[in-house]
């Protein structure tokens, strides 16, 4: 094998580009198009471990939010998002977001996205959880699929975007002092060769990391690679304890059943046929067929997933062969309506749990879904490394706070993808010089590290480590957490990281070596999982999706924890957890309420305001 690696070393190709974008899902593609439009003379390298249309944006179903209707306001969308995020959002970022979402959705419409329409041909919108007014643009229940394909196909128009499909980025390149981005190194999967891409600015658009949990909605590729890469270069991962459990996944597989089902009027019942959400601060019960925004099934995801957990404790869930479930009932919507609005859901329910939603309710349960934290960036999506940007689910620009509202993330990748592409083009124009010495040194270090991993002897394998990691994360960072369970998970992860050093790669080949690829992915996942557990352990309060059962931690604590957590990577030991201030522009934290309780509180506030 040594001969092989000597061969690799002499043939490492180096190319130079202006902007390099890692990840070709929605955020990466939108950034690439924006950079190409910002400066048509720029060369843009778009590097992805899968073909763009395989990226996990493809699996998003429900839709994308933008204030659209006459009676809606930007302030409404701002308040829904900030309150939904339990006041951990960067409010200046939310303001920018709500202002730009409509134009971005329109841009996508003009690029051909088949958004669902009203009879008169205007854009239609649907209700979504935690949103006061219906403002979610949708393409039936395949919104992410259509957004991704529209962006991919549109990107083909720009000849300056050069794609590197099925290239896995193994590391970033920086200047000697680590403060200026210089490019990246990628593995060409088909050839088994490394390529160094020198770039004046780099965008990480690598998606989330919910594959660190065993029961999740995510595709196999969602392993947190970009997060781990930035983290190992000293960029903090922010708010990683906030992991969204989607309330409606299929048992067994965890496959996503969209919130759009509830937006269209679907209801959730327990084993007694009772709509239990009314018992958890989301009621009173709304009549069947009359969904009401921010009530009952249209509450936010964290509250709904937590309500399931309580019902399970009370013995009110249903014993299904694939685990405990409750029911999502769509029968009253009728076959024609389901076919128009929710055809994909109907197909998935039939294929994966043998249920026809026209005739039977769908068994569902909460499942790990979305990484609300991520690579810390400023409001312009730039990290603390000059010229290194992060956007989309891998980033923490500060939009989602402690709980993301459904349909804000597709809009995020458009709004902030545009901003990031513009920013990366600007940084490329300002770029001063290549640190050739540092680049050469790093490329060699990276190669040596990877060839050592490929050739090392050992008795561990990545699949066993991955299974143990995901089990530990399900237990330690579940819907409800305790110190004891989190410590157990943290200890397990430390053990697994040690064992990972002794894994053995069986496949020594060059061509499409997924034995090696999956090992690298598991390595990334371990680091990201560790940042999640330690951020969670250190946050001694309950907020949004981070809920604790241990004494003194069950309530929100704005005095001590109205702060972002920052996890800093330490090689061979646990991360350092620090905190940063939350930007508050116009919404001071208050009690987070839904259903009638929210309306009563608002009425009271209004009355007091008048006095």
């Amino acid at each position, binding site marked *: 094998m040594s001969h092989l690696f000597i061969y690799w070393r002499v043939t490492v190709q180096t190319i130079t580009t202006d902007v390099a974008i890692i990840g070709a899902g929605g955020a990466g593609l939108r950034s690439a198009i924006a950079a190409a439009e910002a400066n048509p003379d720029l060369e843009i390298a778009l590097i992805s471990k*899968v*073909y763009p*249309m*395989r*990226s*996990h944006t*493809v*699996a998003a179903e429900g839709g994308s939010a933008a204030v659209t209707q006459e009676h809606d306001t930007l302030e409404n969308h701002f308040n829904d998002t900030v309150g939904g995020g339990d006041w951990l959002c960067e409010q200046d970022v939310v303001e920018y977001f709500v202002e730009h979402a409509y*134009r971005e959705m*329109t*841009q996508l*419409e*003009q*690029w*051909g996205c*088949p*958004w669902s*329409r009203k*009879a*008169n*041909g*205007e*854009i239609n919108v649907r209700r979504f959880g935690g949103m006061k007014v219906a403002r979610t643009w949708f393409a039936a229940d*395949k919104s992410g*699929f*259509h957004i991704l*394909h529209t962006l991919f*196909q*549109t990107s*083909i*128009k720009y000849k300056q975007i050069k794609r590197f*499909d099925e290239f896995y980025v193994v590391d970033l390149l920086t200047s000697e002092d680590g403060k200026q981005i210089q490019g990246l190194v990628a593995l060409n999967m*088909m050839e088994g060769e490394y390529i160094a891409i020198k770039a004046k600015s780099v965008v990480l658009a690598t998606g989330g990391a919910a594959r660190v949990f065993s029961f999740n909605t995510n*595709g*196999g*590729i969602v392993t947190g690679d970009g997060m781990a890469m930035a983290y190992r270069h000293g960029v903090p991962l922010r708010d990683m304890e906030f992991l969204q459990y989607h309330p409606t996944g299929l048992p*067994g*597989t965890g*496959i*996503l059943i969209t919130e759009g089902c509830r937006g269209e009027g679907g209801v959730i019942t327990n084993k007694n046929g009772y709509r239990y959400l009314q018992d958890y601060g989301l009621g009173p019960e709304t009549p069947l067929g009359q969904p009401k925004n921010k009530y009952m099934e249209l509450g936010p995801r964290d509250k709904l997933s937590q309500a399931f957990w309580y019902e399970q404790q009370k013995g009110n869930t249903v014993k299904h*062969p*694939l685990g405990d479930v409750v029911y999502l009932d769509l029968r009253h919507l009728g076959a024609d309506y389901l076919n128009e609005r929710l055809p994909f859901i109907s*197909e*998935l329910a039939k*294929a*994966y749990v043998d249920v026809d939603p026209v005739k039977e309710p769908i068994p569902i349960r909460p499942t790990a879904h979305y990484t609300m934290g991520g690579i810390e960036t400023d409001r312009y999506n730039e990290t603390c490394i000059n010229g290194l940007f992060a956007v989309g689910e891998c980033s923490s620009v500060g939009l989602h706070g402690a709980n993301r509202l459904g349909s804000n993330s597709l809009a995020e990748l458009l709004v902030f993808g545009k901003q990031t592409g513009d920013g990366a083009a600007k940084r490329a124009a300002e770029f001063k010089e290549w640190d050739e010495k540092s680049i050469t040194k790093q490329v060699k270090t990276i190669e040596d590290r990877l060839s050592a991993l490929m050739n090392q002897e050992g008795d561990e*394998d990545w*699949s066993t480590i991955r*299974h143990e990691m995901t089990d530990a994360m399900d237990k330690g960072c579940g819907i409800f957490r305790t110190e004891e369970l989190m410590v157990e998970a943290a200890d397990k992860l430390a053990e697994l990281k040690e064992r990972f050093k002794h894994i053995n*790669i*069986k*496949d020594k*080949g*060059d*061509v*499409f*070596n*997924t*034995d090696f690829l*999956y090992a690298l992915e598991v390595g990334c996942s371990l680091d990201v999982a560790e940042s999640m557990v330690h951020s969670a352990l250190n946050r001694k309060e309950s907020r949004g999706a981070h809920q604790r059962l241990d004494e003194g931690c069950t309530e929100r604590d704005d005095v001590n924890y109205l702060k972002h957590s920052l996890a800093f990577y330490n090689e061979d030991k646990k991360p350092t957890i620090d905190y940063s201030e939350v930007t508050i522009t116009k919404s001071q934290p208050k009690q987070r309420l839904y259903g009638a309780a929210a309306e009563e509180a608002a009425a009271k506030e209004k009355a007091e305001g008048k006095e």
Partner: protein
Amino acid sequence: MSRIQKIDIMRYDPEKDAEPYMQHFEIPVNETTSLLDALVYIKDEQDKSLTFRWSCRMAICGSCGMMVNNVPKLACQTFLRDYPDGITVEPLANFDVEKDLIVDMTPFIERLEAIKPYIINDDLNPDDGPTIQTPAQMEKYQQYSACINCGLCYAACPQFGLNKNFIGPAVIALARRYNLDTRDKGFQERMGILNSEDGVWGCTFVGYCSEVCPKGVDPAAGVNQTKVDSAQDYVISMMKCQ
């Protein structure tokens, strides 16, 4: 509920094997195990070198197309309960095999890029707000926009098997998707490729492409309708010449 499933998988490592060969596996499955679950199980537990593409496991990312008992299918949408007597798995037909179940998708991607699969219309500006498109207008192209680029129709297409230059079902359907869109003005720019012998006229209308599509797209109809466009386009261009 659990039983043992027989699976025969075609293996090929270009660095080791002169020819592809079949390898037999036996794994525990239940009523819900998909072929993809089975492949992942084998990779995790039995053979780290088994190589295949996959991601979403819900029939939307289009990664896991392969031949299942000689029929092009998505592995995630194929359930082993339907194959109690055993199942044979091979890479997608009509593409070059790179390794095991991984084929070279480059010919498909090149075709897709060539037909300009995007809205061509310089008059649109997002500041003017969304365009109007009625549900009836959308209906015309909607089914063609559901293609997930999985390549099953290329594995099913006898013409693509014979003529490597044939542009093929999914890409013609995609061209049709944009040609039928009220927002698009790129019809003429696409007709050059579609008119050629390797375009729609290469199709001999077997129709198997539509049969194997996992998303209910009807590329055969797209090809046939484009033949009508192509014939009209030809007549019009002849008249213009005179």
